[in-house]
């Protein structure tokens, strides 16, 4: 299992979701993707995309008042 980190601080829609989609495609089953971002709407679009595409959201938490950390599991 490998773990990749995408630092998307400062990125605005649609970049965050597109970056996540592209990176997920390069990962193997069981790999994890850590996403750091500060754009609230993107947290929502990414988690709904993951849910709808069979990936698992292992972790979702805030790192600061506006910072988020998501961990996705490639399924």
């Amino acid at each position, binding site marked *: 299992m490998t773990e990749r980190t995408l630092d998307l601080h400062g990125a605005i829609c649609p970049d965050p979701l597109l970056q996540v989609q592209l990176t997920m495609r390069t990962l193997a089953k069981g790999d994890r993707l850590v996403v750091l971002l*500060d754009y609230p709407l993107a947290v929502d679009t990414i988690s709904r995309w993951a849910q709808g595409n069979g990936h698992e959201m292992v972790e979702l938490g805030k790192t600061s008042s506006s910072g988020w950390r998501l961990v996705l599991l490639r399924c």
Partner: protein
Amino acid sequence: MNTAFREVMVSRDAALFQAYLVAVAVQAVLIQLGASLGLLEMSLIPFYWRAAVVGGLIFGIGMTLAGGCTTGTWYRVGEGMVGSFVALLGFSLSASATRWGLLRPLGLAVRGSTPLEIGGEVPTLANLLNVNPWVIIGLVAAGVVVWVLRRPGKPSLFGWSWGKTGLLVGLLAAAAWYISGLTGRHYGFSITGPTANMVNFAIAREPVSLSWAVFVVLAIPFGAFAAAKWSGEFAWRAPSPKKFPQQFVGGILMGFGAVTAGGCNIGHGLTGLSAFAVSSLVATAFTILGVWTGTYVFFMRRARGA
């Protein structure tokens, strides 16, 4: 709304788009009812077909670069997003310049001089098809209800469900027609005209331009600021500096496109659409097409190449 239009394409997720249609349907029923009861008057945006097509398209492409629609940009300013300040600067300046200034001749050339009319009236779906407006409203509302019930969008992570949000926006938008009408302005929510008016008032002190809608628009960032503070989500944040010119140019395209088309995603997309004005239908369809085009050309293609 930029997101609502875009996510149908990027992640095949129609939850926001459904909420948008719920808002339009609720508003359509209420304002037609209000008009029948004599509570409000429906004035509509004239249909210049080239303006709706070209203006809508440019506006939609601009939204993708600016990182949000007109309302989205205004409320993100209140949430502390510096990039949206930059987009708003471009948008408000170019909206004003297209209405009164340097860009006006270009906007008028795109628009043409004669609006299309049906029997001397602004075309709506009802008078175009020569049916009672309630037939159109009934069909649209039934279609929205069936779609939402059969294929509900995935729920939002936070706060209210998108359906509930759509319902509330529809109620507020209908109330806006009534309240605005009391001040002698016979239209619902709009953003672009009032934004341009604000600039014009600030710079040239035109006394005519401070309508009810100007104060509504000014209240958006304060409301967003209060809500963000309340939920502990307010923070100053900025994209990388190289995004600023992109958002500024996006704002300029939005201002030119929206003023040329006669409205933005709110004036046409939320308000005019619920009255089924043909101008609003065409402008909104081309705005959506513009968002898809912009998203593909500037983001998806580039992301794949990277």
